[in-house]
């Protein structure tokens, strides 16, 4: 075995052209599938997943490039591990995880738990404890640069993770290292476990100023508007004088798509009963 760095060679990278109407139907499908699985287990983190459906879809079905074999050459890292249900259903649709994998979610013998696990197909890191993902993503982006590959690392974080000091250590390091191949997306639903961040932690805002002060280029988008997210992802800041990592703050609603779940803390963990399930399904099916 050679000790030389293994260069990723992707001759032909393909990026999907983005169709907002198709994205809407995909996201509807993803929410429905998550709801279905929520009937099998008592704790599913439905609301944190619904919060970032459009974000994750815009990455897997938009920004992330594939090689000529159809394999992703860009990296997706779910730092907010509790939102992994949306990643699982996307990976299922892509054939990277199987239907049987998702049917065995959180069951003995299954390989998918309530937080993503490194080693599972499609999973770039084990997360679940908050404030770890961006640091790992920094290391991945640094490695790709050192190897001379042009792979990008996309890291989805909860806003709560930006209360962790470790996230700001990672922000500072990413900028110091000029990691222009790193894009962080914040799922800014304004809810931590206990309360609204804007009410309990007023100094948390403004966000963009903080990120810019830490050397990031920034964008703020409506986090359930796929076209807006994709446009922000598509702007690769290649005209910047200094290479910089990027933070896209996505303004979202926790539990998006089901009225009784939206911004109601209990749905961080709970699964719906039959009546609730029927109503939720109805709302998702009939959403414009």
């Amino acid at each position, binding site marked *: 075995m050679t000790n*030389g*760095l293994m260069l990723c060679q992707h001759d032909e990278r393909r990026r999907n052209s983005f169709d907002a109407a198709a994205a809407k139907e995909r996201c509807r499908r993803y929410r429905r599938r998550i709801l279905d699985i929520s009937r099998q287990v008592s704790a599913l983190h439905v609301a944190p997943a619904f919060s970032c459906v459009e974000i994750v879809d815009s990455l897997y079905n938009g920004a992330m490039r594939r090689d000529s074999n159809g394999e992703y050459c860009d990296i997706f890292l779910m730092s907010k591990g509790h939102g992994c249900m949306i990643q699982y259903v996307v990976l299922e649709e892509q054939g990277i995880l199987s239907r049987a994998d998702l049917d065995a979610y959180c069951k003995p013998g299954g390989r998918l738990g309530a937080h993503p696990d*490194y080693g599972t197909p499609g999973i770039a890191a084990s997360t679940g404890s908050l404030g770890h993902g961006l*640091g790992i993503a920094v290391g*991945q982006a*640094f*490695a790709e640069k050192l190897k001379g590959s042009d792979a990008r690392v996309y890291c989805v974080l909860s806003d709560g993770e930006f209360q962790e000091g*470790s996230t700001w250590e990672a922000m*500072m*390091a990413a900028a110091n290292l000029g990691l222009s191949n790193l894009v962080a997306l914040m799922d800014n639903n304004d809810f931590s476990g206990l309360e609204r961040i804007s009410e309990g932690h007023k100094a948390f805002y403004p966000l963009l100023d903080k990120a810019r002060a830490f050397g990031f280029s920034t964008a703020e988008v409506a986090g359930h508007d796929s076209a807006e997210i994709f446009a922000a992802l598509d702007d690769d800041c290649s005209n910047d004088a200094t290479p910089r990592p990027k933070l896209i703050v996505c303004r979202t609603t926790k539990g998006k798509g089901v009225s009784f779940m939206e911004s109601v803390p209990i749905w961080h963990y709970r699964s719906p009963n039959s009546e609730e399930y029927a109503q939720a399904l109805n709302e998702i099916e009939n959403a414009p």
Partner: protein
Amino acid sequence: MRNRFADTFYELGREDERLCLVVADISPAGSIEKFRTKFPQRFVNTGVAEQIMIGMTAGMAQRGLRPFAYTIATFSLYRPFEMVRDDLCYQNLCVTVVGIGGGLTYSTLGATHHAQEDVAIACAIPNLTVIAPCDPAETEAATRWCATQEHGPVYLRLGKAGEPDFTSNAPQPWTFGKLRQIRPGADVCILTYGPIMKRAWAVAERLEAAGRSVAINSVHTLKPLDVSGLADALTQFPSVVVIEECAPTGGLAMQVKAIAFDIGARTRLFSFTLKDEFIHCYGSHDDILDAHGLSIEDMTRRILSE
């Protein structure tokens, strides 16, 4: 040890361009500076930020690099503990976390800089290999092993600079995971690791002067522990002595006692560890070891008195 580590790492880094060094604002001692100057693209200083130091090495390893994280032991293991546990050990990545100044090395800096329970804590984490060389030669062997192994994460616990040589002429070579006899003897077997080897050696000399034939084993690999090698020592020697610069709970002494119980050993077993205390005492490394009850005289007297 610090310098030999840096020299060895520099040599290895010339051959293997996957090797990277990530430090958290540690002052560049000797050859570390050489690596930094020669391979600036593979040297990262995260600043006073240990969580990202460990976190980013995880990502680097996942993408094919061979990172070493390097700073003072308390800051490489305690400060970013959850990153060591989750990012490195849970994901089982080949990253070496180097802790310099293991034990009470930084004797004048107070307990904030004393890694006095590092080995016990490190041994408790699944997947983490724990290696504590006793001198520069063992440091070189261990560093070479860490740079080429495929097991997973390693905590490499070093002293600082100026440790004497104990093992260049040892009858056995350094082998990962194996007890290493560095001094032959028949009556008493001393088990020890790390910079406190100097005291173990001094105790051996005193015991020899009192007519005992004393063997010393370097237990450089604390995890995985060489259980059969330790069981053999407990079976073959009438007296076994553990000397370690680590808190009493969870260190080598406790594990040796457990093995002795498991095999029904009939040997006389002495254990000398740090106290389960923060001692507010400043002075040389020797001064503070004395304050923990590990003076050469006290240890020798106790062994001879029973």
